[in-house]
């Protein structure tokens, strides 16, 4: 009987679990890693980015985004939207073509792959015959012209991918008609470019690698005109009125040819090498756009003088007398110019440039061509991300102040709205305001609006101003000397160079109620900052804290402390530092917490931890946790790696000073490092089986710090306390005595050691939580004061939850004795890497919810563990276990969501909650008026024609696992 009853309870619990927990990866934030292709649909107002890992991402208006993944793990080399259709074609590295469509389903669009195709040449033909080098999606929306390496042009009917052999344009057909005087009639080489005549869809220009261009009439199947360019061809552009063709060449020149119809007038009208005299690099793409009244815009990429600026990544924009060479910090993938309405003659509005590390949009209608701030695709990694911190439910007041501070930083950006406006965002407004803070290697902290699908940059804080760094003040890359030629202008914010690695941010803690922010860095610095709406000039008071407490026999072998500016520093509106703690030895800060009500900061390194009173600007106490025999802790963690990095960085800076900002040496160095790592992996692997001992290295490293108002000494009086957990499985508890509020500024705070727990299994302590009488985690500081949480239950007995890498253990308080535990490592061999407390609301009943522990293991699985009973609730695979940096970057929200880095530049967002879910919900429809006037036949309906497709593959847009 008993067994049956229990079974009933379990199934009830199972049902409840289904109402509370559900796992999904919802959206990818940031900039796609290694983009390789760009496409744009003027009719849909969507841009598409293909990546080297085979992903295809579509973006429209903010919030409208789709994601697909090719099954082949091959790079996307070209993306073409079918004109006036919701389909797009991708060409992969493996020469396969893929058809994607945006299909509406239950009022929401989904990106689906609906067909794939590989050219089959005549039997026995070499593979080069069918190797696609150029793709033209014909404006009829029914034809695809595929130029190949062998010089042929294949015509394929889309979206079904049916080869129309009779319409193919073979090399023989073309070369037979080439005028005899075209030098030696040598091989024409591959098809480099295919362009359609904007006013006559029957005419296309075929550009061959050798330079020859042929205007071909699709209807009559013969050449109309030959353009005998003699330089290697890079790109072709047919002007808006169909009267001219522009060609760009590998010697840095471009030519303008007039299209004379039947009588071949093959004189080049104008030829120019814009950065001439000395040998120049190729102009890889050229675009000319008319304006309503005035000279056209000419935009081209490359063409820089080879010797002096051959390594620059430039796009030149020439309009009337204005000529600017936009100088990007990473390689240019592709660009396009956006016009408000393609049919009507009006000025181009924006230049959209996809470079290797970011998307830059230039406003061409505002004087000075400022950059438009991107609402998505923001390079998270403009400096490498070193840590992140998430704060849920930001009060409106703080939110507005952060936005206001951020807006002041955007003065040099364009005021124009985002020019890409496709689709409708149907996602409901986010229920709360969430902030994601990322710490970076260069000492900056970036604030992101993480409430919705778009991770929007709000504000950037730099901590470097507090210190003297070895930055050369003259090393300003933006300085433009008058009359410089080419007229460079630096654009883009991707800047991976950190001037001083010690500035790197390691830990962040923001109190959303008080607006106090603490950040801690690589050189043991802890800055306390306060939000100020005005700019202020102030001196930051530094306090050096000796964590070794005079222990003899230690010599720090790592980096030195940062040098603090002693003179007053002018801080802009926003978060302004007012107090600074510097740990001695200046090791990386490994744990940090803030109690804004008590005005206390606790910090820890591999040597010990301390408590700082930022009201009195005084250190309260220090506890050294270092094992006297642990010499490795004095090496400065990773000091060897650091020194390699340092030397690399210095050489980069040298390179940079010599005006060479090429990303290839970095890639090479990375590749070399990776190869070395791979080699290390190949060494015969064996693992030592040994119990942990107190003599292991880094046992003293402080992993977690926690403030709690709880029962430490007796069960009737609760007192403020500080808890610290170390790598060696020790927990230290200190009882804090705070003076009454009226004497807070003059009476000292005292701390007494109250308890010390040494876990038998000695695994690192990664989390400490005190549970109140109801078994709920204690509220955050000031949370009760702001009436946002019920007060903790101080009547019942409190419990202490210690989370080690191996197990979860609940102890009674005030007398510490083990009550419950949940073993993890002993059971399945996985270890806790990240842990957080989250609240899960039920999807069925509005008022039911429970707190739980969210856990990420080193196997990449996420678990939810119930509180206070510490029982495993659910488990989902989330991150590949080999993806160590992804696992290390994971951060949980207070409502059961999380973020982790899937590449240096992208966060994956996931949700464990059934109630709290942020995912793109959007609809893209073909605009009714967009049907081109040249189109005579009615368009087949997308939904019905899908049945004809030979190959049917469904890849949902949330499929985001890169493999």
């Amino acid at each position, binding site marked *: 009987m008993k067994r049956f009853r229990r079974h009933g309870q379990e199934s009830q619990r199972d049902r409840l679990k289904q109402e509370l927990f559900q796992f999904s990866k919802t959206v990818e934030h940031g900039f796609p890693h290694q983009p390789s292709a760009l496409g744009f649909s003027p009719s849909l107002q969507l841009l598409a980015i293909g990546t080297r890992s085979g992903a295809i991402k579509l973006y429209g208006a903010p919030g409208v985004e789709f994601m697909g993944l090719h099954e082949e793990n091959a790079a996307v080399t070209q993306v073409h939207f079918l004109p006036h259709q919701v389909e797009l074609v991708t060409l992969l590295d493996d020469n396969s073509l893929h058809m994607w469509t945006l299909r509406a389903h239950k009022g929401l669009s989904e990106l689906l792959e609906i067909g794939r195709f590989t050219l089959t040449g005549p039997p026995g033909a070499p593979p080069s015959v069918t190797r696609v080098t150029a793709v033209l999606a014909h404006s009829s929306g029914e034809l695809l012209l595929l130029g190949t390496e062998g010089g042929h042009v294949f015509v394929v009917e889309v979206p079904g991918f049916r080869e129309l052999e009779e319409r193919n344009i073979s090399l023989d057909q073309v070369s037979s008609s080439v005028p005899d005087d075209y030098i030696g009639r040598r091989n024409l080489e591959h098809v480099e470019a295919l362009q359609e005549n904007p006013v006559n869809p029957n005419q296309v220009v075929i550009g061959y690698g050798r330079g020859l261009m042929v205007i071909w009439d699709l209807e009559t199947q013969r050449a109309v005109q030959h353009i005998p360019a003699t330089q290697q061809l890079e790109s072709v552009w047919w002007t808006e009125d169909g009267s001219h063709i522009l060609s760009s060449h590998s010697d840095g020149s471009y030519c303008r040819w007039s299209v004379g119809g039947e009588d071949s007038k093959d004189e080049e009208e104008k030829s120019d090498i814009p950065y001439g005299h000395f040998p120049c690099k190729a102009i890889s793409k050229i675009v000319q756009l008319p304006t309503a009244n005035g000279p056209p815009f000419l935009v081209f990429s490359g063409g820089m003088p080879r010797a002096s600026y051959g390594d620059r990544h430039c796009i030149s924009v020439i309009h009337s007398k204005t000529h600017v060479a936009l100088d990007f910090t990473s390689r240019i993938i592709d660009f396009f110019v956006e016009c408000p309405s393609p049919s009507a003659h009006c000025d181009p509005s924006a230049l959209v440039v996809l470079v290797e590390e970011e998307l830059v949009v230039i406003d061409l209608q505002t004087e000075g061509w400022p950059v438009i701030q991107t609402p998505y695709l923001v390079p998270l990694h403009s400096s490498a991300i070193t840590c992140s911190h998430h704060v849920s439910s930001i009060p409106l007041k703080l939110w507005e102040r952060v936005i206001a501070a951020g807006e002041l930083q955007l003065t040099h950006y364009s005021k124009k709205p985002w020019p890409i406006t496709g689709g409708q965002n149907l996602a409901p407004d986010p229920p709360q305001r969430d902030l994601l803070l990322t710490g970076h290697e260069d000492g900056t902290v970036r604030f992101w609006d993480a409430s919705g699908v778009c991770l929007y940059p709000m504000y950037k804080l730099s901590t470097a101003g507090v210190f003297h760094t070895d930055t050369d003040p003259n090393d300003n890359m933006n300085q433009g000397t008058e009359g410089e030629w080419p007229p460079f202008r630096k654009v883009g914010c991707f800047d991976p160079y950190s001037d001083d690695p010690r500035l790197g941010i390691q830990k962040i803690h923001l109190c959303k109620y008080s607006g106090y922010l603490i950040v801690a860095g690589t050189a043991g610095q802890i800055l306390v900052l306060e939000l100020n709406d005005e700019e202020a000039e102030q001196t930051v008071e530094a306090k050096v804290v000796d964590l070794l407490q005079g222990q003899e026999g230690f010599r720090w072998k790592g980096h030195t402390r940062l040098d603090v500016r002693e003179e007053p520093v002018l801080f802009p509106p926003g978060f302004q530092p007012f107090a600074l703690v510097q740990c001695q030895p200046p090791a990386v800060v490994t744990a940090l917490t803030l109690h804004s009500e008590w005005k206390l900061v606790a910090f820890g390194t591999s040597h010990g931890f301390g408590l700082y009173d930022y009201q009195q600007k005084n250190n309260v106490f220090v506890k050294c946790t270092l094992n006297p025999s642990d010499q490795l802790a004095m090496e400065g963690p990773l000091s060897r790696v650091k020194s390699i990095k340092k030397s690399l960085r210095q050489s980069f800076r040298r390179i940079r000073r010599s005006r060479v900002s090429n990303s290839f040496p970095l890639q090479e160095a990375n590749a070399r490092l990776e190869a070395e790592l791979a080699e290390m992996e190949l060494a015969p692997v064996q*693992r030592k089986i040994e119990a942990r001992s107190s003599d292991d290295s880094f046992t003293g490293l402080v992993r977690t710090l926690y403030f709690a108002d709880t029962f430490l000494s007796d069960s009737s009086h609760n007192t403020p306390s500080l808890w610290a957990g170390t790598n060696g499985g020790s927990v230290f508890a200190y009882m804090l005595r705070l003076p009454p509020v009226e004497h807070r500024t003059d009476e000292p705070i005292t701390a007494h050691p109250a308890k010390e727990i040494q876990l038998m299994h000695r695994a690192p302590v990664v989390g400490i939580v005190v549970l109140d009488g109801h078994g709920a985690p204690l509220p955050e500081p000031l949370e009760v004061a702001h009436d946002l949480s019920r007060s903790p239950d101080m009547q019942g007995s409190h419990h202490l939850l210690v989370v080690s890498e191996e197990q979860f253990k609940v102890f009674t308080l005030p007398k510490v004795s083990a009550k419950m*535990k949940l073993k993890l*490592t002993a059971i399945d061999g996985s270890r806790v890497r990240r842990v957080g407390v989250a609240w899960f609301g039920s999807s069925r009943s509005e008022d039911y919810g429970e707190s739980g522990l969210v856990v990420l293991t080193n196997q990449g699985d996420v678990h939810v563990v119930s509180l206070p009973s510490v029982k495993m609730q659910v488990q989902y695979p989330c991150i590949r276990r080999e993806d160590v940096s992804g696992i290390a970057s994971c951060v949980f929200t207070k409502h059961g969501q999380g973020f982790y880095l899937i590449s240096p530049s992208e966060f994956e967002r996931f949700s464990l909650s059934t109630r709290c879910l942020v995912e793109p919900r959007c609809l893209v429809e073909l605009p009714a008026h967009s049907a081109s006037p040249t189109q005579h036949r009615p368009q087949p309906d997308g939904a019905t024609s899908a049945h004809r497709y030979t190959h049917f593959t469904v890849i949902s847009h949330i499929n985001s696992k890169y493999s």
Partner: protein
Amino acid sequence: MNKNHRVPSNRSLSAVEVKSKFGAEFRRFSLDRSKPGRFDEFYGLLQHVHRIPNVELLVGYADVHGDLLPINNDDNYHKAISTASPLLRLFLQRKEEADHLAFGTDSLTRKKNTVLSAVLLRPDPNRKKPPVIISLPKDFRPVSSIIDVDILPETHRRVRLYKHGQEKPLGFYIRDGSSVRVTPQGLEKVPGIFISRMVPGGLAESTGLLAVNDEVLEVNGIEVAGKSLDQVTDMMIANSHNLIITVKPANQRNNIVRSGGGGGGAASGSSGRSSDSGASYYGYSSPGGIGAAASTPSHIIQNFHPEELESDEDDEDLVIEAGGEAELIPCAPSASYSMPSLPRYEPHLNLRTAAAAASSGSLAMERRSLEEDGTVITL
């Protein structure tokens, strides 16, 4: 698990009769069973009654099974007192003449003529210390044991290593490898975890129950199949205080041979054995070939109780409570705290495991000699 086993059972008489022998001399006296006192007091008493105040002694006694066991600390002294029925027979030796090998199973009964006479009756002053001391049985703590022999297939061995608080390292390494299994589809190569190295002097080596190239099948009752090397490493380390590993020994010659259909106790094991017979046959039939042809039985019955696994660790988290002052004052010991000053040992040992540990020692010696030629190459 409460460790206060010090109070002897009340069913016995209050006085213990003691017969102490040193060389050829006997002394008889009695002790209060309920108040045995401490070992050092007892040691002083022995020196006093034998009138050898400055002689370093090694104290041994004969337990109920006739084994000669040492008395050298409070715990085994109390054990000796509490188990004496009714006579406690003591054998004293000079420390410098002591023969450590004498202690152990059957040492009094079977080898009476050799060991006892040599040690106790005619102590030879010229006799040198034995050249090799395998391990000095300092107390009754078990070091290792083979368990669940009755339910495991013959080709497998479940070894329990007792780490406790002792200094000796566990001392072995594991690696990735592959083993061949017999499946309905034929032979299949599957990844496995193997012991790759033993640390000389480590616990694992000293037991002799584990050897290089043994395939690890389970850790504390959990199958390792499908787990990575790092996962298995972490599992072993997490269980290091009481590690139970089930291996398929590379050397299958020392397997425990059970008399087929003998006792009723084998009933539970027979099913496991028959299901695995193919594998064990294969294991034998491939000398020097693909050795560890292990097929893990799909169902694994465990004899050890889960509480047993949990037992020692739970209350051994060390808690230091401080008073109002800054100094750390250890609080009064209570049942749930174990203090650092107390020797950590396992009082709830049962004689079964102790005997197994002792017997495994002799078994180990045999094995080591066999290991030389008995290694099987594993892919």
